């Protein structure tokens, strides 16, 4: 089960993963973007940690909402609204107080993705964070449907996210600033997709460390 404490461990580990890859993320964003994705993500992670620290309730929806709002408050261009919406939409979907089981976790991810998709026209194949997020959420749902554990769900999600992020190397950007360089965007993975993969890596790590 994903308890409140486990959620905290998951997002803290995710923050650690992003922080360790700040320069990589900024470099990926330099190629066609404006080179700030690493900085923005690290600021978002700092806000998440502050929000986690400040959260008084022990309610999972409240925690996820606080995290989403904190991420949105990062003033980070497209990243803040998209990642913020992911957490806030998870919050809307998560039931009252109970810890989430594998299915509940996958359902929350699915709701998060649906929220994100309301904000952007980007589809899989457009070389954005969606290229990692969509397969990750689908893999999570499949793992849960197949009776997998919370850890199975997160491992599947992470692996799918990583593979999805890697696939973006061969793609041409059609959203985000990088779309403006057209074909030249081919050859390196997308920064935002790489971030998604790092978040899921952190979630998995957090759940494992807090078994």
């Amino acid at each position, binding site marked *: 089960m994903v308890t409140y404490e486990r959620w905290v461990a998951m997002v803290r580990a995710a923050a650690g993963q992003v922080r360790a890859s700040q320069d990589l993320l*900024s470099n990926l964003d*330099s190629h*066609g973007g*404006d*080179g*700030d994705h*690493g*900085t*923005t993500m690290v*600021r978002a992670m700092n806000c998440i940690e502050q929000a986690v620290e400040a959260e008084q309730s022990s309610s999972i929806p409240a925690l996820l909402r606080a995290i989403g*709002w904190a*991420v*949105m*408050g*990062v*003033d*980070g*261009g*497209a*990243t*803040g*609204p*998209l990642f*913020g*919406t992911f957490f806030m939409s998870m919050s809307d979907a998560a039931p009252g107080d109970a810890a989430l089981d594998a299915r509940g976790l996958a359902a929350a991810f699915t709701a998060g993705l649906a929220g994100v998709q309301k*904000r*952007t*026209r980007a589809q899989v194949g457009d070389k954005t964070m969606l290229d990692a997020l969509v397969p990750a959420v689908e893999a999570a749902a499949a793992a849960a449907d197949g009776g997998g554990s919370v850890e199975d769900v997160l491992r599947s999600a992470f692996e799918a996210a990583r593979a999805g992020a890697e696939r973006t190397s061969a793609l041409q950007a059609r*959203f*985000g*600033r990088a779309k*403006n*360089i*057209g074909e*030249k965007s081919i050859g390196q993975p997308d920064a935002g997709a790489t971030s998604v993969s790092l978040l899921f890596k952190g979630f998995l790590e957090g759940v494992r460390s807090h078994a």
Partner: protein
Amino acid sequence: MAMKKFINDPDNLVNELLAGFVLAHANKVALAGNKLVVRTHPKAASKVAVVTLGGSGHEPALSGFVGEGMLDISVPGEIFAAPGPPRVFEALKLAHRDAGVLLVVLNHEGDVMTAGIAMEMAEKEGYKVKQVLTHDDISVPSRQDPRDRRGLVGCFPVIKVAGAAAEQGKSLDECLAIAERMERNMATLAVAVTGATHPSTGSVIAEVPEADMIVGMGQHGEAGGGQQPLKSADETAAIMIDALCNDLGAKAGDRLLVMINGVGSTTLMEQYLVLNGVKKALDAKGIVLARAIAGEFLTVQEMGGFQMFAAKMDDELLALWDAPCNTPALVVK
């Protein structure tokens, strides 16, 4: 070439630049709430408020347009990054009034998402808020889908005419209609000749080959595809005004407002030369240069180049463009 900028802590850039900004314009603007830029002499609460949001690093835009006759509040984001929805919602709350609030949004993904979320929240609270989206960049090939046209310096004239209308006491619907008429009749094209660096990351945000210029460069260094050998002021002016007139369907007798917006290191001297070239090109077409303006209004750090803006004007838009205003970036008596 390493970044050569006078900065302190790169993570504190926006706070410090805002502190200096209000020092330099102490009689016009002040800070409120969470880094909101507001007027020191607010307009009457019975009048429509005009609010905008957008990344920093483009000074004097966008906070430089706060003041009598233009904006009531600007929400500056981080360098080149839109502010998040919480601060935009805070601004809408602060601006909230029965007359309503017009939110001017430049078409960049972050800005649009942020504005959308903040607007939804404001509507949930029952605030009267309308939005105008500026997408004046004609360099993007797919003209069909206006969602693909970026918002460049055109936000400035839209804010000018909408702000003047609001100051005159026009209703929210009237202000919106004026803003949208300006928006529909305007077009911008940018050209870059030298690159720039991102002041907080130090990374190169645009590079231009030694002997070239890039027509269509976006305002965060996004390339536009029009790479070609550097041309003279007159030739460049002719190429760009032709493209703009074409986009606008401007014909003999039409009255244009033309702006040369220096984006960084291109001198005012050159901007005047280009404007002179525009005049010659328009004269040849019989199109009237009704109003002209040159200067740095929306910059891209130290990038060399400029944005050329043109708009077809009618009597009302001209009168609103000429109306008095008192802001850090523009004062009209």
